[in-house]
């Protein structure tokens, strides 16, 4: 009879996931002297082999479209080893009427290998959602509690930006930003006319040497992965220092299945599938940190049932899987004939925005709550598949006229992406789908997702703003969105922005939250969650910087508690 193999020895901490939160936990805990075993579901990352930097499209047989052209359904063939919304053998379901797209990145470093590097602090008011206007709840911590950790994270990973003293965009510890691109100056001019804030972007990209990493060389290919670690990824910036302490054991190809709980109600280890041998193994640890990404961590908790925790581990509140949100997203684009006269020049820059639009309407009453920021970009980028789909659609025809139209159009379009705050609602959550398991027999998630009027009105406002900016700049707004239907105003399906958070939220009240302000489970003192799951609010700022600040703070607390013998 097959046996479940036990894996000695016992570690201080088992961390599940090596992304932003897990990588940070691994670094802080090992540097603090604890032995850590890190379970990563994916393979190791190999920058030399995996990162397609400086590769021309024609150096790939598929030119960037991937096998069968399917890479275009994710982010293209060039992106650093990324996951996908659909992974063979790892199904999930959506309830009728819902359509949640769940992105998983199965590799050391996870999504931080290919993320947009946008590093924005949450504002003080974002921690006070309940007090503010009754929509959502207050965090059990304040901006002042987290601010020292924002400082630490920015100082360690390196973020460029400028101090602007804008309430919706709290200043941080910044490296100098690169000069704006032509397209960015162009849009800034229009924004200035409209009194729309437009300031230097804030990216986790170095413009000065830092901690042995070289500054950015402006190839514009951050998304492909950076062999010099000039941009931030957990795999290249958090895991290596953790490794060099000698206290980190990383197990790759390790799909965590459930957290093991002792009779005393404390976590005592993790059962996982070793993918290479397809066997079940166990690691034992004095504390467990879940950082598998928000919904994956919720899934682990829900699948870790026992007589002490019949509704899932640490779930006496019933809120694991609840309060799920993703960012509100809607995109548009404009055509600017004035950009035709731009001389050919190197427009690449860092792999992201040098300028952006933080939420600016915080000083007035809007017909929706909260707000959104706008990312924009375009111009003379490296040509790629799909670049002239718009021209083909608009011009039709063929031959010399089509070729001329493409030449003329190149570099003249700018796209806009609004990214805004979703208010948690009772119809949006994830739970276990009792009828579906993945290829290792682990029960899968079922998602329920609904946009409310708040988010739809926000998306409408995004579209109107894009149009106004484009027309003020003298361009033609070309994006078309429906007013009704399943995705009004171009609102993207839940999960498409890949900022899903909230599924094991923190709170002062154990009846309505899973974790305390240190990301520590109310029910299980030696269990922590350090990815996007603890976030109470999903504001108009990308979550990753906050995930890392919370993880560092929670790890410091874990170290203190371990030293006191409280775990």
């Amino acid at each position: 009879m097959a046996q479940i193999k036990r894996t000695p020895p016992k570690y201080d901490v088992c961390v599940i996931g090596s992304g932003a939160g897990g990588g940070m936990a691994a670094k802080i805990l090992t540097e603090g002297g604890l032995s850590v075993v890190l379970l990563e579901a994916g393979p190791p990352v190999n920058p030399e082999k995996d990162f397609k930097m400086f590769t021309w499209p024609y150096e790939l047989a598929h030119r960037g479209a991937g096998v069968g052209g399917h890479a275009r359904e994710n982010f293209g063939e060039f992106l650093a080893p990324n996951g996908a919304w659909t992974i063979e053998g790892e199904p999930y379901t959506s309830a009728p009427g819902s359509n949640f797209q769940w992105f998983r990145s199965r590799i050391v470093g996870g999504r931080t290998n290919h993320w947009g590097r946008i590093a924005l602090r949450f504002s003080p008011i974002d921690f006070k959602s309940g007090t503010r206007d009754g929509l959502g709840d207050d965090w059990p911590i304040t901006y002042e509690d987290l601010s020292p950790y924002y400082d630490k994270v920015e100082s360690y990973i390196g973020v460029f930006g400028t101090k602007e003293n804008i309430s919706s965009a709290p200043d941080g510890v910044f490296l100098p930003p690169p000069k704006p691109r032509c397209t960015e100056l162009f849009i800034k001019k229009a924004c200035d006319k409209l009194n729309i804030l437009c300031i230097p972007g804030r990216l986790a990209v170095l413009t000065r040497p830092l901690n042995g990493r070289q500054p950015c060389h402006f190839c514009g290919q951050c998304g492909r992965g950076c062999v010099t670690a000039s941009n931030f990824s957990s795999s290249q910036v958090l895991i290596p220092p953790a490794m060099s302490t000698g206290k980190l054991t990383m197990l790759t190809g390790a799909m965590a299945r459930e957290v093991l709980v002792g009779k005393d109600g404390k976590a005592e280890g993790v059962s996982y599938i070793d993918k290479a041998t397809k066997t079940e193994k166990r690691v034992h640890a004095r504390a467990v940190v879940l950082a598998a990404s928000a919904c994956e961590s919720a899934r682990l908790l829900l699948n870790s049932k026992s007589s002490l925790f019949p509704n899932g581990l640490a779930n006496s509140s019933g809120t694991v899987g609840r309060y799920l949100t993703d960012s509100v997203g809607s995109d548009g684009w404009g055509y600017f004939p004035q950009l035709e006269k731009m001389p050919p020049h190197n427009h690449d820059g860092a792999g992201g925005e040098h300028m952006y639009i933080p939420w600016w309407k915080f000083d007035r009453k809007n017909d929706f709550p909260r707000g959104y920021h706008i990312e924009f970009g375009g111009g003379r980028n490296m040509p790629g598949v799909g670049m002239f789909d718009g021209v083909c659609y608009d011009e039709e025809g063929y031959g010399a006229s089509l070729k001329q139209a493409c030449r003329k159009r190149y570099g003249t379009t700018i796209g806009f992406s609004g990214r805004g705050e979703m208010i948690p609602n009772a119809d949006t959550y994830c739970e276990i789908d009792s009828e579906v398991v993945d290829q290792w027999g682990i029960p899968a998630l079922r998602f329920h997702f609904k946009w409310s009027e708040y988010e739809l009105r926000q998306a409408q406002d995004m579209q109107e703003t894009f149009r106004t900016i484009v027309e003020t700049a003298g361009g033609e707004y070309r994006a078309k969105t429906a007013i009704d239907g399943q995705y009004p105003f171009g609102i993207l399906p839940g999960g498409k922005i890949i900022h899903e958070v909230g599924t094991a939220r923190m709170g002062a009240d154990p009846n309505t939250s899973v974790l305390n302000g240190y990301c520590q489970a109310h029910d299980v003192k030696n269990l922590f969650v350090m990815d996007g799951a603890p976030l109470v609010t999903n504001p108009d700022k990308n979550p990753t910087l906050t995930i890392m600040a919370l993880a560092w703070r929670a790890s410091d607390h874990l170290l203190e508690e371990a030293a006191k013998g409280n775990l």
Partner: protein
Amino acid sequence: MAQGISRRDILRTLAVGAVGGSVLQVIPAQAAAYAHQMVHQEKAASATGKYVPKYFSVHQYEMLTALCDAIIPKDERSGGAVEAGAPEFIDLLTSENEKYALRLGGGLFWLDNFCTDRFGNMFLECTPDQKTEVLDLIAYRENARQDHTLSQGVAFFALLRSMTCDGYYTSKIGIADLQYIGNTAVREFPGCPPVPE
């Protein structure tokens, strides 16, 4: 980067300034090996010798080549889609994607049938004027609105047109035609050059 500096050179230059220990660094030797592999792939792709289509029949591939040439022809400034390898690219993707196979393969059959009905010859045997007449019809959605029998041809040509542009503008020739400058390492981002009024 100027399309002459190799990826290998850039990676080697970058590695010189790197400090080991605290981060996962590129190792020049391995980076160079990877670059060699890429260059080898490029050479294989441009090797002369008759291309054996992966999906299309020999006849269909000839049609495809003629159509790509019509969609993005050579001109005084740059070569066309055929020289850029668009037909091979389209054939590769079509051999891996059932939807493309149906729409493009089916479209080529449709085109031969249409030409036979209209002119008594398959597409490749038509005169230049006849070919122009057909393409002018299927190159515009409006024509299918007026005459529904053109619908399949119009849908086919729209897909082929997009894929031909994809194949052309991701090629060395196409990228040079657009005068894209980049894909290189620079110490400082130069910002926006002066723009003529």
